[in-house]
């Protein structure tokens, strides 16, 4: 096949230059639909392919990528990677793993067969927008969509690795703008599933409408320090924003503030965090990483102590450890590390205790990309949600900010709930955590 031939041709050129290397080939097909005022506004299809090459010559690493696949482009890909390597500093730790395995993911799990026609998907998009637009006080549904994405990845290395994975993700989302006099609010809900038939149109419409109507009445609370619970979406966003604290790559580069704290107490003793790539219920399910190394469950925080950082083979070598199977690399990127599927263990606090007395439930955070500094841990975000009393939403809150230091916050845990929840992208599984004494401006 052309793909295998291209890979062989590229890796033969790499070896002929006295280098070793690995090649990622990503291919994808996607469908995206958007509706407006009862008609289809956008219909988008794509078919893509990209090759990403990493070479190591004389201990120096270089990378290059190409979306063009003509013979000249493939030859240039190798030349560029080798040229780039010639400028790099010698890295004694990065190497192509001696891994000649033939690996294949489970299609039954990652892309189960489904007969679904385009008509059904268009109907879903139109119905979702129409039903939501017909709800009380909804002015329009400016942002909505249905997506069906299929992705394939091949990894080949000069050591003989041949790894293949294929996965599908279907998603739907809708954001509605509601108005009442001079008050307005916008909010939305999304869902992701491996099967289109698992998407729940009614739930998206109902929850989006409920959230919007609640926010419509939202006002700020007085500035002060509050007990705060982040909902299943915002809590995952918060932990992912500061995921650098687990990065062996950042530790190797000297910028991870947790670099010297492995084995030390960094959080409340009731906090246990593990990266669990083998839980097939989530979209972070992975059998091997970008080096073809087997993934495994990796305890990160155990009883409040930082148990481990996550590593690829290079960062592990730097710290004289074994890889934890967390290598990440895209066709356009250099080798890094990344979490697969974060899980926070259940706590022991019952809902009646967790949700007791007064607290703020934050359901939306804004400015995550700009308002956080993972090196210092300081953050300040826009926020909205609900002021709650004994589990009941007393009133909606918006136009506030939440600020603090994430690493200090890990020690300010008041309670950990006894139930776990997936976020809508199914990338993390966590119980609700109640944080004490968090600065709110209103």
């Amino acid at each position, binding site marked *: 096949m052309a793909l295998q031939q291209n890979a062989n041709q590229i890796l033969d050129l790499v070896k002929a230059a006295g280098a070793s290397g690995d090649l990622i080939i990503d291919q994808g097909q996607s469908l995206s639909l958007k509706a407006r005022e009862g008609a289809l506004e956008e219909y988008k*299809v794509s078919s893509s392919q990209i090759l990403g090459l990493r070479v190591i010559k004389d201990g120096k690493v270089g990378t290059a990528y190409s979306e063009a696949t003509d013979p000249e482009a493939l030859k240039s890909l190798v030349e560029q990677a080798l040229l780039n390597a010639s400028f790099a500093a010698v890295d004694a730790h990065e190497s192509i793993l001696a891994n000649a395995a033939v690996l294949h993911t489970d299609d039954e799990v990652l892309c189960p067969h489904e007969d679904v026609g385009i008509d059904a998907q268009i109907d879903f998009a139109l119905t979702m927008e129409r039903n939501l637009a017909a709800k009380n006080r909804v002015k329009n549904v400016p942002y909505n969509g249905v997506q069906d994405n299929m992705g394939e990845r091949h990894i080949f290395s000069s050591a003989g690795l041949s790894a293949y994975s294929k996965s599908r993700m279907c998603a739907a989302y809708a954001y509605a703008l509601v108005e009442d006099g001079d008050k307005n609010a916008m909010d939305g809900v999304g869902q992701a599933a491996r099967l289109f038939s698992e998407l729940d149109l009614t739930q998206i419409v109902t929850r989006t409408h409920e959230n919007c109507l609640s926010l419509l009445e939202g006002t700020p609370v007085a500035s002060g320090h509050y007990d705060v619970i982040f909902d299943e979406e915002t809590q995952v966003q918060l932990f992912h924003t500061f995921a650098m604290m687990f990065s062996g790559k950042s530790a190797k580069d000297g910028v991870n503030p947790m670099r010297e704290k492995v084995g030390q107490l960094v959080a409340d003793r009731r906090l246990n965090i593990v990266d669990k790539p083998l839980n097939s219920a989530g979209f972070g399910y992975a059998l091997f990483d970008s080096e073809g190394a087997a993934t495994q469950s990796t305890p990160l925080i155990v009883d409040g102590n930082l148990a481990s950082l996550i590593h690829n083979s290079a960062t592990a070598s730097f710290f004289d450890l074994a890889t934890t199977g967390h290598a990440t690399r895209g066709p356009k990127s250099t080798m890094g590390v990344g979490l697969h599927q974060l899980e926070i263990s259940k706590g022991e606090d019952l809902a009646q205790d967790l949700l007791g007395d007064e607290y703020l439930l934050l359901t939306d955070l804004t400015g995550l990309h700009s308002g956080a500094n993972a090196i210092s841990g300081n953050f300040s975000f826009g926020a909205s949600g609900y002021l709650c009393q004994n589990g009941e939403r007393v009133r909606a809150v918006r136009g506030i900010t939440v600020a603090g230091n994430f690493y200090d916050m890990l020690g300010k845990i008041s309670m950990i709930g006894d139930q776990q929840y997936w976020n809508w992208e199914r990338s993390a599984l966590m119980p609700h955590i109640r944080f004490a004494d968090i600065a709110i401006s209103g």
Partner: protein
Amino acid sequence: MLNTSLAQSVIDHAISLGADFAELFVERSQTNMVSTLSSHVQSVQSGIDFGVGVRLVYGTKVLYGYTNKAEEAELKRIVSELAAKDRRDPRISFTNFDYRRVEDKHAATRILSTDPEVGGKVAFLLATDKAARAASNMISQTRGTCGQVEQKIELFNSEGLHTGDIRNYTRAFLVAIASDGSEQSTGSWNDGGLMGWELVERMNSEAAGKEAARQALVNLSAKPCPSGRMPVVLGNGFGGVIFHEACGHLLETTSVAKKASVFHDKMGEMIANPVVNAVDDGTMIKERGSINIDDEGLDSQRTQLIKDGKLTSFLVDRIGSQQTGFARTGSGRRESYKYAPASRMRNTFIEPGNAELDDMIGSMERGIYASHMGGGSVQPGTGEFNFAVTEGYYVENGKILYPIKAATLISTGPKVLKEISMVGKDFALASGTCGSVSGSIPTTVGQATLKVDDILVGGNA
């Protein structure tokens, strides 16, 4: 890049299926990125992006597809797939392509396809590192990057347009990390433009390193930020992100046409304090947000958005024009062939006024001087926005007292535009990248130092 007869054949096919409009956007981009970590090269990356975007319009419905294969059969397959649900008898007839050569008003001299000049970029970044470390022994680390892109585009459409352009973008970043043993903080510097590596001729590595180090050291000594509603003086240059978020996105027909902008029905009305004059100008020579033509083939232009507080124009692309009736403003932009174009900002700024910085600071009983800003975001439907202060100071009784830690400022667009009470003389532009419906595109923001009388400051004191 694409054979004209092939392009004609594909567009003919789209017309035969009843499309009101058909367009091919062909792109081949060369990229190069040099990264340093303190005093050594961390990585050098390069690559080629190549693909064709196909846009069909039926009424107000946009059908879009893309592929990496510039082959007739593949492009016709995409057209047929896109049009499958809408095919009908032809509505338009094809006009022969009339090639239109675009004058390059931003001609680059040191371009990637000639020489990536990796050695020169490495030398520049290592010099910035040296300067940053020389500033203080508390500077523990630096991270530098120099990125260069040469984007070649070609457009064909069913109205007979055939044109193309080459855009050269270069940008350099430095982040310095300061540490006192217990805490760490960061400071940054960047510069960039619609130009090749001749950017280096205006950059000063010594000044760049010192500036990143200065900011990191200021932030290391910062105290928790007070919170609550108060006046804020926003520094020039990247402080212009406030207008970009608070107003710019809300003037794009992408939001206006859907009535998802709070300004959608405010044309000709006073939406800002009369001291506010705002412009989106895609013609500024070699500025990062400039373009010779937009991604729909229309000449770029200068668009006066707000004049003396009154809304005078939206940012309008082809579909936005069709939906709102306003004339196109050369604002149809996209990250790459993977996106359909949408109305987007270019170089967006508030024009300078006459106020002095000392008078602005002196007028605050209790407030914040945000001398450097980070990024932000906005929800167009409600106008609620946020943006981050990366270097700020607490002000009391008209005096700057001490630096403050991370803070976010939040408000709504309509409210903050009316709260801008003083605009200074020290106008400056700053390069950035804006993410929205048609991907991440190069932009510039700008303003002179200005004062907002009331905004919510999210501190943690």
